[in-house]
């Protein structure tokens, strides 16, 4: 019998080969794919996020857990698409114009994926209009912008502005993060949200998209 908790436990340990094996086994035994996703993979990543917030896990532990999650997702993604199972929301993610530092952005992406969001990572050094274009094309619900430098964080306000100019403010939320960022700065540039770390970013994204998500889920 497939044991979904065993999938979660191996994901938490970052044992990617074992997660792959167990997800395959569960599918072979005809366990519902949504159940594998929610009670295996997402349940595991939820524990990882909590351990990170409690200083039991650090970045390396998160990275190997996310690698295991990804291995599992690769197997079930085609089936999720085939069965038209909707994600928690679509997030476009990138670093601010001129900023190359992407470890924070990557961690946020991993944690969001791990919580069931569809993450479209558009990479580093992203111009404001490219964020908006990607959000339009991918029908995203949320844009996440990350910056390490004070010299690049200033372009975040242009993302908010470009979104307004495209008539998408309110429809697409903007969330910001990175070392020099604060809630105050988010308020000042009228971004919808700020999170101090990757695990909190998931809570913030859920909060921001609650209304949208209820709509998606019908």
């Amino acid at each position, binding site marked *: 019998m497939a044991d979904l908790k065993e999938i979660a436990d191996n994901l938490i340990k*970052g044992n990617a080969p074992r997660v792959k094996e167990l997800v395959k086994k569960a599918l072979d035994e005809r366990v519902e794919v949504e159940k594998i996703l929610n009670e295996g993979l997402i349940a595991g990543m939820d524990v990882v996020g909590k351990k990170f917030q409690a*200083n039991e*896990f*650090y*970045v*390396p*532990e998160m*990275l*190997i857990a996310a*690698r295991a999650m990804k291995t599992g997702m690769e197997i079930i993604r085609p089936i999720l698409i085939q069965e038209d199972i909707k994600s928690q929301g679509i997030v476009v993610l990138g670093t601010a*114009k*001129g*900023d*190359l*530092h992407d*470890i924070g952005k*990557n961690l946020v992406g991993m944690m969001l994926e791990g919580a069931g969001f569809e993450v479209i990572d558009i990479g580093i*050094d992203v111009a404001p209009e490219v964020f908006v274009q990607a959000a339009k094309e991918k029908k995203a619900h949320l844009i996440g912008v990350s910056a390490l*430098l*004070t*010299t*690049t964080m*200033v*372009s975040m306000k242009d993302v908010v502005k470009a979104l307004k100019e495209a008539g998408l403010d309110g429809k697409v939320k903007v969330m910001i993060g990175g*070392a*020099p960022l604060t809630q105050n700065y988010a308020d000042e540039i009228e971004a919808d949200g700020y999170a*101090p*770390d990757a695990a909190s970013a998931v809570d913030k994204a859920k909060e921001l998209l609650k209304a949208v998500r209820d709509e998606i889920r019908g």
Partner: protein
Amino acid sequence: MNPKERVRIALSFEEPDRVPVSADYVPEIGKKLHQRVGPEEIDVGVVMGNDMVITTHGFAGSYYLKEEPEYYDEWGCKWKYFRNPSGSYTEVIERPLEDEKKLDSYKIPDPYNNRRYEPSRQIIEKYGKDYWIVGAIPCTIFEVSWGLRGLDKFMMDMLSNKDFAHTLMDKVMEFPLVAGKKLIELGVDMLWTGDDVGMQTGMMISLALWREYFKPRYAKLYSEFKKLNPSIKIAYHSCGNCEAILDEMHEIGLDVINPIQPGAMNPAHIKKRYGKKLVLWGTMDEQKILPFGTPEEVKAEVKRLIKNCAPGGGFILTPAHNIQADTSMENILAFYEAAKEYGQYPMRL
């Protein structure tokens, strides 16, 4: 009192004539300052009021190494300039050890070549009598390891590919070990090591991993350096909050902690808790006040930091990173002016 003596006394946990000060700059700021104070000086910081002169070796020297838009460094990394609204930053875009199989044949740059140290020798000759000379070998072990391999990959290696991670770290640490000894022989007053292990919110890696990978290697470096010259001072840099390792760094021979990034660690708390055994070098906020504050706010912050951290010596006031291109000349001048105005011993703040 000359700057060298000023720093020496502060590092002995005594009060010199005033709080020593230093700052480093990104190239855009360096150029602007050169235009103000004249290009004939090798070290523009000295003219601005720095009490120390820094001479750098190793991977840290690869940042802004060349003016071409893309360039290779001697470690085999390909770098690229990325523009931002006020300047530029260089970052690695191609790494020689993305494929782990290449480690066996990988060779670090030759640290034994004496020609490499000629600029340091000249700096010591020119400034060594009057200024505190810092031989800098930051990006000491971890940052060069992940620079060659990729940060995500190397951090995963530390958990699930341990032999590889240990072998890579052993290989790269030959450079700082040799370069540090060469710099000691040339006559630097202090060696500045460093590897960023902190984030804004706390340690990036667990204490268990730090003890496995970092502590024994740093202990070896520091003991070899002090064996060669028992009076050499050793500094360590980590951005972010690295309070978790300070006691153990002191235990293996650390003298000076830099930069006590104030958005991540409270300098007043660090002074209270570690100020009798570790010298604080840094503390000036660069995530908010220096780039975005007014000159008055900069001065008020300098005053506050001196009041909290300067009593009894053991303090060098310095911005928590090299001054970034978005910082105004007024704020840079305000920083130096306030340091001199409020930094006088005996303190009256």
